[in-house]
């Protein structure tokens, strides 16, 4: 995977830090006491459970929680102990231990909830809303995501997180999302720690996540701990689950638009497992629904393949390998084709030194590319590609029960090939836009510590070093963005280095057992920038990296909130305000030339942005009725010299009100119902300020950038799940959905143009998609 000799950063201090940290070998302290340790697993699936609290009775509530690998360890003096294990979704368990030697005890917990989907719960304490020190975080359980009714029955994590406060969707049919007023490319989307450049299928109607193979989803809304970086606004951390290493299973679903199947099982019973998932849509179904007669000449589909392998090499070593391959294809037979997709492979090695030190190392290769081709008269085609090679290493040091440290380094080598075009006609011609190479590195140290009973803090520092590298042509521009001259840099030569220190801080101060105040500050930077001509974005948008002309984007975010739980953690309430300052925000100058143009930097303008808002949320987590209400009031603006006469203007993603109400109800052991209602202010949009005529045709005149609003958007979705059969060998369910149940025609696009029937007038036309869309799918599991 490390094919390029120069990927290691050249900058001396980073290399030094790298070498130094490899030689920090933790020293084993000999135990005067005995240790109880083991793994906490779900009794049925054998999936490891994270964050499970194991409390020692009669010891003032002291205990531990299981870690990211499901492992726990308690070191105690010789004696008799009772351990209590109490975790949401599982039956309480009590263990009596006689401790007179080191004991290995795995704990199996029995699920209490019904339903086909795995109850795999992410790392969370029952009172996390109040006590967890890291704020600005949204965690979603796959079980919840699977209950939320969605478009065409396609469960979609990205649509589901848009129902959370502070997170807004880019619009109907788009998979992009905005977090706290940030743009769609300011979110880092990680699948098993690999970043996906395009997390959507088919122009944004579906996302690249096959929720059948996922374990959990965590969204950091800007305030993120030091081990994360690379994007300004958020981190969406999606983890695949492990395969069952005891028994084989096959599961799948057949729906109106797509089907999926996944298989898992042991490679070596108890020691290693595999999980493979596949998903595909049917062009036929879509074509039939579109009502176009000649649909047999058009192909529209995507597929996804997910894979995860786990090997426990020993008690102390685990290896996992994750892979993904996905592709979208749109073909007009004998005329044109476009396709695009992500693919990656990542190998992880976890090593446990002792009960205090663990380390994780990973190696990854990641690629995103697109292709378009045209055969009408002439043969024209083009591709663009991004390749990432990554290496990460992290130490986790459990200093004490109240303090955990993380130290790590990461390095990614980017190879951006913005375009290679070929003409194959009577003459052949081809153009290769210059690659942009760069090395994105970081070192971080972070500590989560419970300082007193009431105060818990996560603080850290991330140092990022970004290097624009050769080989390539780099340009010097004058203040009007014209090219003055250019320099050719040899392979691996450093063109420009940007070093940024990113302090991170988040604290929870408990006012009492049920309420707390949390505050956070974070500085984030971003060096990969997505240049999109249209606000919605397309798979063919161009990525560019920081260079001698393009500076890293930098943001500073502060937040302050009040958190309260009611009824023994049944209800969670929070109100949180944030303010974010952004620098080096990019936008295109008017009528920029982005396609096929090598010196893209001459087309870019930069300036600043600011976003602020208040998020309110009330969640009910337990009982037959669960759900939440999330409301965000916010503003997001930009000020870029050269745009809108140098005045502040609303960013496209500015959205004053955003309200989501979601409810899920277990009617009886067979049926569960769900409903989701969303309402939001329309996007800021540019409408014409007048019109004129060119060659006898109406042309719109624009004077106010983003000075208007799209109409308000609101929609109700309904869903129902019927458990058909549930035995230990076979389960199946039917999932019904109705998207946009009251048929509101939400504006997808508004066009101002000559009236279709009366050319002497100009009229505004509103286009909307998706009203009253029903769906049915059948899911099964062996």
């Amino acid at each position: 995977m490390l094919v390029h000799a120069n990927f290691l950063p050249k900058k001396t201090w980073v290399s030094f830090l790298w070498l130094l940290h490899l030689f920090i070998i933790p020293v084993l302290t000999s135990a005067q006491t005995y240790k109880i340790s083991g793994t906490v697993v779900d009794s049925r699936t054998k999936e490891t459970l994270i964050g499970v609290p194991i409390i020692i009775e009669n010891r003032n509530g002291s205990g531990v929680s299981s870690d990211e690998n499901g492992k726990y360890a308690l070191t105690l003096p010789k004696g008799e102990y009772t351990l209590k294990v109490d975790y949401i979704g599982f039956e309480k368990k009590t263990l009596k231990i006689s401790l007179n030697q080191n004991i290995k005890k795995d704990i199996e917990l029995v699920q209490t909830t019904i339903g086909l989907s795995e109850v795999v719960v992410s790392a969370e304490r029952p009172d996390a809303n109040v006590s967890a020190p890291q704020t600005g975080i949204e965690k979603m359980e796959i079980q919840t995501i699977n209950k939320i009714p969605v478009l065409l029955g396609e469960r979609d994590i990205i649509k589901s997180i848009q129902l959370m406060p502070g997170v807004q969707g880019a619009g109907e049919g788009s998979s992009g999302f905005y977090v706290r007023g940030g743009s769609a490319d300011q979110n880092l989307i990680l699948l098993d720690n690999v970043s996906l450049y395009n997390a959507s299928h088919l122009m944004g109607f579906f996302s690249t996540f096959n929720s059948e193979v996922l374990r959990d989803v965590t969204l950091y809304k800007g305030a993120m701990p030091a081990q994360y970086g690379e994007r300004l606004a958020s981190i969406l951390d999606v983890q695949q689950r492990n395969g069952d290493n005891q028994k084989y299973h096959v599961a799948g679903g057949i729906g109106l638009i797509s089907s999926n199947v996944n298989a898992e099982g042991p490679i070596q019973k108890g020691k290693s497992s595999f999980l493979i998932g596949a998903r595909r849509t049917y062009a036929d179904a879509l074509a039939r629904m579109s009502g176009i007669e000649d649909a047999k000449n058009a192909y529209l589909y995507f597929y996804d393949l997910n894979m995860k392998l786990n090997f426990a090499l020993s008690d102390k070593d685990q290896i996992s390998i994750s892979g993904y391959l996905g592709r979208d294809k749109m073909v007009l037979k004998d005329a044109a084709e476009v396709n695009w997709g992500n693919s990656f492979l990542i190998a992880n090695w976890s090593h446990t030194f002792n009960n205090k030190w663990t380390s994780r190392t990973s190696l990854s290769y990641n690629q995103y590319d697109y292709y378009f081709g045209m055969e009408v008269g002439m043969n024209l085609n083009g591709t663009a590609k991004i390749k990432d090679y990554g290496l990460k290493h992290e130490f986790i040091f459990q200093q004490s029960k109240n303090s955990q440290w993380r130290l790590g380094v990461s390095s990614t080598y980017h190879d951006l090939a913005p375009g290679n075009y070929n003409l194959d006609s009577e003459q052949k011609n081809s153009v290769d836009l210059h690659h942009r190479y760069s090395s994105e590195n970081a070192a971080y140290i972070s500590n989560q510590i419970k300082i007193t009973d009431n105060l818990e803090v996560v603080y850290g520092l991330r140092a990022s070093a970004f290097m624009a590298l050769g080989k390539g042509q780099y340009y010097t521009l004058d203040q009007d963005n014209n090219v003055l001259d250019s320099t050719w840099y040899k392979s691996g030569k450093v063109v420009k280095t940007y070093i940024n220190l990113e302090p991170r801080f988040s604290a929870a101060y408990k006012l009492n057992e049920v309420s707390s105040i949390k505050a956070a500050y974070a500085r984030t930077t971003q060096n990969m920038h997505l240049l999109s001509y249209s606000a919605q974005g397309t798979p063919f948008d161009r990525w560019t990296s920081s260079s001698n002309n393009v500076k890293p984007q930098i943001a500073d975010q502060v937040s302050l909130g009040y958190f309260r739980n009611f009824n023994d953690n049944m209800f969670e309430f929070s109100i949180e305000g944030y303010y974010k300052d952004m620098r080096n925000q990019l936008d295109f100058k008017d009528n920029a030339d982005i396609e096929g143009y090598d010196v893209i930097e001459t087309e870019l303008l930069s300036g600043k942005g600011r976003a602020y808002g208040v998020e309110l949320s009330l969640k009910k987590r337990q009982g037959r009725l669960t759900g939440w209400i999330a409301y965000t009031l916010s503003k997001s603006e930009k000020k870029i010299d050269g745009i809108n006469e140098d005045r502040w203007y609303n960013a496209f993603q500015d959205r004053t009100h955003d309200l989501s109400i979601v409810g899920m109800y277990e009617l009886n052991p067979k049926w569960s119902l769900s409903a989701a209602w969303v309402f939001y202010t329309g996007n800021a949009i540019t409408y014409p300020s007048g019109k004129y005529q060119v060659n006898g045709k109406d042309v719109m005149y624009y004077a106010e950038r983003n000075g208007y609003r799209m109409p308000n958007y609101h929609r109700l979705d309904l869903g129902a799940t019927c458990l058909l059969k549930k035995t230990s060998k076979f389960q199946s369910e039917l999932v019904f959905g109705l998207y946009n149940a009251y048929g509101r025609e939400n504006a997808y696009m508004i066009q101002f143009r000559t009236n279709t029937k009366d050319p002497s007038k100009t009229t505004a036309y509103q286009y909307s998609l998706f009203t009253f869309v029903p769906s049915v799918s059948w899911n099964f599991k062996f």
Partner: protein
Amino acid sequence: MKSIKNKYIIVLSALAVMLAVTSCEKEIDVDLNSVTPRIQIEGIVKQDQLAKVRVSHTLDFNDNSGYPFLKGAIVKISDDAGNTEILQQDNTGWYVAQNIKGVIGRSYNLSVTYEDKEYTSTSKIPPLVKLDSLSMYKVPVMKYAIPMIHFSDPKGETNQYYRCLVYINGKQLPDVNEMVLSAEFMDGSPIHQFLPVFINDDDVDPIKQGDEIEVEFQCIDKGAYTFFYTLSRIEDSKTNPTSNIKGGALGYFSASTVDKMTITAEWEE
């Protein structure tokens, strides 16, 4: 390069239209602010035709009273062969020359003075390139065929930019985008390009069997090309096209060659 992406964008749009499942279109009323009208100029010097200029201004979106032909502008055209003329407004509202005509290879200067402000521009007619032929291309998902032009771009930078106007039975359709193309990527090559005759009206086909299609093929200079190209992108960019007129006027000044060719629309169903 622009023409490459232009093509696939067109195809992609056609595909995206297909994907627009159960999509609805409806007329709506939008409250738009009034702004000060902005002056707009169209200056045209076609090969072998008298120069003509239209001086107008923008209207409010909901004002359908008709675009004005402003009176009292001083419109002057001069060429690099020493000719100068002040154009007089005729009964069509256009300011029309009596003597100055488009000559291949000549450079023209335009000056329009209206209400004490002057707007100027320059445009040069490139060498003549003619169409080799026209053909009809049946688009796989549409019920009609569209015209396709065939010509050879001469090697070198003097001929780079082309523009096509389409007349169906003598009329231009009000919502069809004109095709402009740049031969930068295909310098010196034979070029085969379809003309995107697509309209917003789903009930009517813009081209029917037997229609007479006339294509006016122009060679234009870079300033005019930039205007027409940015004009074609206005839906996405939501910014005004880059005008080649100095002084703050909207619009363009284009001196061009002209070649016309006709084809009768016929295709196999």
